């Protein structure tokens, strides 16, 4: 074209016959480069964060001011009780977005290009999952900030408070392999959203998020006791408020490991098969 100048910056005349360059940590480096891509996208489309920042506000305001008096006797006591639960619920629903985004993305040409590059096939998925960590941190910080404005206070120390936040972020990170897997199996982004809500809502209502677990009907107890959300909420409550931890941190970590061990291989396999 008229604007092209000089020689094209292209091919070396010989086809590279060298063995694939086995530089170390390829998966890690490529995944991080692709995580940066997700970050830039999050940064460029802040409106995508509106639902995850609005949801905790709505839940906190509605439950604290409408049910607080009835459930806990005082709105402040209920806010203290509820905030860790809302944090867990928000961060778990926040993990749905990755499934919705991947389902939209994968149909576009960009994933074709990734697949035509000499990078590990799983790197685009791992990168997308890692890139979402920033979204979970934003969700955590904004939920805590709203709580503080409403009068929530940490009763323990900053170190344990941070540990609680890290645990919540880690939980979302590991849980997100489930929506990633679902997004490979389901046809439309709307279906990913619908299915994931249908999975996550029972988890957060049949748990200790809104009321103490022992007030729930007996037939539900068995489910509540194994529900990963119950363990996460109890662990965060313990770390924020000093209530007994009773091994909930370990149970949460076990669930995290379980999510990754089951859904990451399933998701990667489904991704390889999906053309």
């Amino acid at each position: 074209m008229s604007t092209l100048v000089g020689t094209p910056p292209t091919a070396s005349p010989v086809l590279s016959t060298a063995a694939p360059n086995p530089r170390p940590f390829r998966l890690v480096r490529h995944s991080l480069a692709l995580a940066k891509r997700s970050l830039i996208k999050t940064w460029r489309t802040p409106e995508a964060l509106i639902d995850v920042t609005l949801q905790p506000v709505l839940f906190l305001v509605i439950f604290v001011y409408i049910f607080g008096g009835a459930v806990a006797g005082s709105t402040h006591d209920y806010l203290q009780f509820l905030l860790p639960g809302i944090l867990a619920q928000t961060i778990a629903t926040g993990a749905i977005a990755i499934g919705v985004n991947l389902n939209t993305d994968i149909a576009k040409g960009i994933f074709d290009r990734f697949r035509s590059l000499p990078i590990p096939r799983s790197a685009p998925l791992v990168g997308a999952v890692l890139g979402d960590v920033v979204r979970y941190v934003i969700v955590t910080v904004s939920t805590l900030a709203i709580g503080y404005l409403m009068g929530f206070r940490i009763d323990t120390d900053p170190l344990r408070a941070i540990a609680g936040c890290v645990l919540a972020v880690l939980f979302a990170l590991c849980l997100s392999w489930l929506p990633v897997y679902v997004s490979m199996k389901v046809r439309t982004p709307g279906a990913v959203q619908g299915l994931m809500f249908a999975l996550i809502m029972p988890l957060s209502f049949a748990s200790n998020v809104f009321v103490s677990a022992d007030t729930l009907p007996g037939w539900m107890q068995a489910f509540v006791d194994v529900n990963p959300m119950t363990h996460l909420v109890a662990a965060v409550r313990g770390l924020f408020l000093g209530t007994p931890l009773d091994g909930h941190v370990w149970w949460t970590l076990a669930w995290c490991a379980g999510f990754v061990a089951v859904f990451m291989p399933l998701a990667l396999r489904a991704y390889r098969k999906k053309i």
Partner: protein
Amino acid sequence: MSGGWRTLCDMTADLVIEAEGLVKHFGKTRALQGVDLAVPRGTVLGVLGPNGAGKTTAVRILSTLLTPDSGTARIGGFDVVRDAERVRQSIGLTGQYASVDEDLTGRQNLELFGTLLELGRAGARRRAAELLGWFDLTDAANRQAKTYSGGMRRRLDLAASLVGSPDVIFLDEPTTGLDPAKREDMWDVVRSLVTNGSTVLLTTQYLEEADALADAITVIDHGRVIAHDTPEGLKRVVGGQTLEVRPSDLADLPRIAAILSEVGSGGQADEIRKGVLAVPVTDDRALTASVARFAAAGIAVTELSLHLPSLDEVFFTLTGRTASEDDTTHRTEVAA
């Protein structure tokens, strides 16, 4: 004619792209039904075919995105299924649909691919700047790709597939949807890639494009190769260019017919549509020659143009059916 081309390939022997008997079915759709392709080093193969012929499927198999149901393909001697990783190191793919990230800027896109191709941070940055400059995208480098015009997107897309300096480049309908000026720009880009030693496989729906760029043309239809030849060979079979003239005054038709018969390649001038005369020509100079003759004779014309046969005409000559007619029969066949 296919015999001649085979011999040519065997003689050169240095085939960078080779495919034999590629078959791919999607449910009941037989996208490829045994396709052979061969591209010697440093040449351009044009794969010509109508919508649905199987061009994209073939490109996706050659670029390791799809595995064939049967048949084999090698790029630079490496099997696209067994040595996919090696193949990916030497190819650049520009798909039919834009494959850059629209939320990223042009520069971020190119730097991302540079990082993924192990150029290192500084190397990726340098390569991105170089390609942005070369594709005249420097001014738009820091804008999100979704704000780019169609032509700019195509350029960015092509730039993205060149980040790793690939030896083999696949271009799937690189100019579909571009206006004629942008199309010629893209042709120049392809030509300079080849000058630099790359081997190119491009798909197109236009004989004109394949003729302008390719050293050899493979025509495919319904997943089968129906011809492969050099552009000259193919044009000999399907007929070369025609010169078309529409006079301002219909009364001039006989005089124009006489002039056309003289500047043409020997055939009679025909009235192909009402008020339009056409004559086969072999030499581009026929156009200027006829302009001079019309001017000398004081004849005014409203249209004067050179045409290669359309894809429909190519198919009619090669198969005795038009591409669209054939589509209908194919569909009923599949439905039955």
